C-alpha cells in the first residue's frame, strides 16, 4: 500500500515538475506547480512529516501560489516560445546539464554507503513529526532560527511593499477626479479620518499646481489606489 502511494505521488511530483518547465503559458506552469506541491505533500506524509505536509499544503499550495496567480494575471502571462533563441545550442546544453546533474546526485546519495539508505528508516514512535513535537522543538532548541525566520519574513514583506509601490505616475489625473462636495465640509489638515485614509481636501484649481509640491501632500500620491 505504501509502495503504491509512493509511486502515485512520486509520478505526480515528477510530472508536475516537468509541466512547470514544459508549459508555454506561465499560468499553466503555476497550476502544474500546485499539483507538484500537492503530490510532494503526499510524499511528506509517507515519510511521517505530518506538520510539514500540512504547512506545505496551506502555505505553499495555498498562499504563495495565490500570490503567483495574481502576479501572472497582472503582468499578463503571454506565451513565450519554448527554449532559447533559434540557433543557439543552449537547450541541448541545458538538457545535458540536467541529465548529468541527476546522475551525479544519484551517485552522491545512493553511492554514499550510508547503512540505512536501503531500509525504511529507523522505527519511530507515533508522535514523530506531529505538530506537538515540531512546535516544542521550534520553541526550545531552535528558538533562535525561529525568531530569525520571523524577522526575515518581516524584512521580505517591507521589501515587497517598497519594490511594488507606485511612484508618482498617473496620480495627477486621479486627483482631479476626486474633487467632491464633502471637501467643502472638512477643513484642511485637521486630522480627519478621511485624511488618514488618503482622501485629501483638494486645493482650489488655481493654487493646486503651487500646492502640489508641499511636503505634506507628497506621500499621499504614492498611495496605491
Amino acid at each position: 500500500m505504501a509502495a503504491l502511494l509512493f509511486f502515485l505521488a512520486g509520478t505526480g511530483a515528477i510530472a508536475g515538475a516537468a509541466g512547470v518547465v514544459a508549459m508555454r503559458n506561465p499560468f499553466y506552469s503555476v497550476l502544474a506547480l500546485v499539483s507538484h506541491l500537492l503530490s510532494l505533500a503526499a510524499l511528506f506524509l509517507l515519510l511521517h512529516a505530518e506538520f510539514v505536509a500540512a504547512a506545505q499544503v496551506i502555505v505553499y499550495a495555498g498562499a504563495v501560489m495565490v500570490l503567483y496567480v495574481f502576479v501572472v494575471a497582472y503582468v499578463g502571462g503571454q506565451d513565450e516560445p519554448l527554449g532559447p533563441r533559434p540557433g543557439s545550442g543552449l537547450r541541448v546544453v541545458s538538457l545535458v546539464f540536467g541529465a548529468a546533474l541527476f546522475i551525479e546526485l544519484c551517485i552522491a546519495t545512493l553511492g554514499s554507503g550510508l547503512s540505512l539508505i536501503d531500509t525504511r528508516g529507523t522505527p519511530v514512535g507515533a508522535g514523530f513529526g506531529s505538530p506537538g513535537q515540531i512546535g516544542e522543538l521550534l520553541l526550545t532548541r531552535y528558538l533562535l532560527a525561529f525568531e530569525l525566520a520571523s524577522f526575515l519574513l518581516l524584512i521580505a514583506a517591507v521589501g515587497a511593499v517598497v519594490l511594488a509601490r507606485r511612484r508618482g505616475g498617473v496620480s495627477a489625473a486621479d486627483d482631479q477626479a476626486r474633487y467632491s462636495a464633502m471637501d467643502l465640509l472638512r477643513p484642511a489638515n485637521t486630522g480627519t479620518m478621511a485624511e488618514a485614509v488618503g482622501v485629501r481636501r483638494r486645493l482650489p484649481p488655481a493654487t493646486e499646481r503651487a500646492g502640489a509640491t508641499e511636503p505634506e501632500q507628497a506621500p499621499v500620491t504614492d498611495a496605491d489606489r
Partner: protein
Amino acid sequence: MDIGWYLTVSALIFAIGAAGVLTRRSPLVILLCIELMLNAANLALIAFARMHGDPDGQIFAIIVMVVAACEVTIGLGIIVAMHRRRLPINVDELRELQG
C-alpha cells in the same frame, strides 16, 4: 519504501528545476523552477530525517520554506516593478540591474 527511492525522486526534481532555470526566459517561470529546486531539497531533508528518526531535518525543511516564501515575495515584487516601468519581462533583454 526505501529511503533511496525518495532521494532518487528528489534528485530528479532538482535536475528538472536546474534545466528549467537554464532553458526558460520568463523570470516568473525561473522563480517557479527555483521553487522546484528548493522543494527537492526539502524532500531530501525530510527523507534523511526519517532515515535517522530525528525530527531536526523537518525543522530545517520548515526554515527552507520560510526562506523560499521570502524569495518569492521579493522576486514577484521586482517583476511587478519591472512591469510598471514597461521593461521587457525577459531575462535575455534584461542584462543589468540599474534603473
